[in-house]
């Protein structure tokens, strides 16, 4: 008798285990089967690796910010693979540090968006009624101002610093995330497991955190990934317009902008950071599309 019970228990836990592995590995298998998504993932991972190891690869003071006038405006060579800029700094070193700034600001801004957006969206979707009305009207007003314009205004008002850029881009990108989380919460909040959670005596906050938000994880991951691309674009656009991160701090947008006066003699100053931005955004978009198809095959057309 007791033997039987153990067997049943064993089978139960084995089933549970297998199911758990199969879900994540299923997503991974689907992602792996899409070549473009894997290319995106590999390129993006390499970029993150470069950004994280920037401190080991180059010396910030010597290579990145200190002018070296005698070597100014040199084209690409063995010593300077991407050439040097208008005051003789090595563009490759600046690109490597720039990756840290551009990606770092974008990641931080998206984390901001995800936290604030999920919270507002979940509360709005869960409570409905007046709370939903008020939060959504405010959200709509923010959404009615184009992202870039809102980010520019906030960044100008707060002043130029990396933290302020993160706040500006974070706020500007939040409204669309609120909408997505709210829609997902509304679609699951009447299902039985939420009812069960309530019946077990869970309070609103517990239900939101442990039942509703986990069901929004897939759309949040997909949107969050794609929003990193938007945030990188916004960061570089702001810096390009002279509103974002100021030189000598290297950021791809302000490096590109710095080359505008030398389009004739040193076009590479403008070309290279732009290529980096395009590659990054492309890799993120490929990865995000693949992730969306992998997490929710129903969405695939």
């Amino acid at each position, binding site marked *: 008798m007791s033997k039987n019970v153990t067997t049943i228990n064993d089978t139960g836990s084995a089933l549970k285990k297998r199911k758990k592995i199969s879900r994540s590995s299923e997503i991974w298998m689907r992602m792996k089967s899409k070549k473009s998504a894997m290319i995106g993932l590999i390129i993006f991972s390499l970029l993150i690796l470069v950004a994280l190891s920037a401190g080991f690869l180059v010396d910030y003071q010597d290579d990145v910010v200190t002018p070296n006038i005698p070597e100014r405006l040199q084209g690409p060579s063995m010593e300077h693979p991407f050439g040097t800029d208008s005051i003789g700094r090595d563009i490759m070193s600046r690109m490597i540090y720039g990756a840290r700034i551009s990606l770092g600001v974008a990641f931080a801004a998206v984390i901001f968006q995800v936290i604030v957006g999920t919270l507002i969206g979940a509360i709005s979707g869960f409570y409905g009624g007046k709370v939903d009305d008020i939060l959504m*009207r*405010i959200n*709509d*007003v*923010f959404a*009615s*101002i*184009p992202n*870039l*314009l809102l980010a*520019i*205004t*906030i960044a*100008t*008002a*707060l*002043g130029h610093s990396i933290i302020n850029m993160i706040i500006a881009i974070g706020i500007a990108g939040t409204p669309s995330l609120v909408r997505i989380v709210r829609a997902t919460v509304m679609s699951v909040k009447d299902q039985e497991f939420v009812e069960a959670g309530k019946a077990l005596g869970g309070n609103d906050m517990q239900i939101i955190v442990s039942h509703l938000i986990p069901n929004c994880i897939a759309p949040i991951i997909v949107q969050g990934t794609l929003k990193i*691309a938007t945030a990188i*674009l916004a960061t*570089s*656009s702001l810096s*390009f*317009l*002279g*509103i974002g991160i100021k030189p000598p701090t290297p950021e791809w*947008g302000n490096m*590109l*902008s710095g*080359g*505008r006066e030398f*389009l*004739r003699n040193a*076009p590479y100053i*403008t*070309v290279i*950071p*732009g290529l980096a*931005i*395009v590659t990054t*955004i*492309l890799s993120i*978009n*490929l990865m995000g599309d693949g992730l969306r198809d992998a997490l929710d095959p129903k969405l695939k*057309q």
Partner: protein
Amino acid sequence: MSRYIFRRVLQLIPVILGASAIIFFILSYSNQDPVMMLLAGTDPTLEQIEMTRHQLGLDRPIWIQFFSYMGGLVRGDLGVSYSTGREVFKEYMLRFPATLKLAFWALFVSVLISIPIGIVSAIKQYSWFDNFGMTFAMLGVATPNFWLGLMLIILFSVQLGWLPAGGYGGLKFLILPAITLGTGQAGLATRMTRSSMLEVIRQDYIRTARAKGLSEKVVIIKHALKNALIPIVTVLGVQFGHALGGAMITETIFSWPGVGRLMIDGINKYDRPVVIGCVIMLCIMVSVVNLAVDILYAYLDPRIKAGYSK
């Protein structure tokens, strides 16, 4: 239909007031001072600073400033620019024709690229052309406007010397900015055209049209495209509306004297009335184009028309 339009215009009012209020408070609580901006380079005395502050009405409490501005707004008065002293609305209207021209030609470029590529990609799904089309669309979405603009300048102005790198005038000056803005828009529009067409060409009525013996051209253009147009028109409409509100980056690169530049200049000088005025006009442009698109739906799809008259 007219009731529908009236209702939509009414819905616009809270959006405009809300957006104005947001921009007002963001700029008011900034740690920058428009007065110092205005007097920069003149080494002003304390008296001059206070004098200017008083003239601009910035010495009043923030709530008084807010309600007096909003009061003007309700009467249709967008206020006076701090830096030029001219009426914001006049200043805006002076710049608007340039923006309208750019937005229109960018839309033209975008339609010219996105619809043919999108249709052929959908018909020949997974062919080499589809791969090419989707790669183009992905690149279009991933390329920042400012970089594309500068690359076009390097190629066509600096290297080949065919077109001017910036300025405002005849068609010559229009080509590069229109391509820059239009190609950026085309990326999303191409993807939209493809996916919308893919959905439609699987429908039964397309098979019926083919079975009737209609030529492929008629099937695609008359039966498929017409039914696939709604999402495409929506995307194009949103993009056109935003371009009408001022393409800040494209206008900056090509020194195009449109409202996007007015907005950037206003932001850089903390010229609150100019920035709010531009944002309000932008909201109006986007809403008017969206409304026009919604009305266009009624012509594309009679079922939607029936829905409006309810």
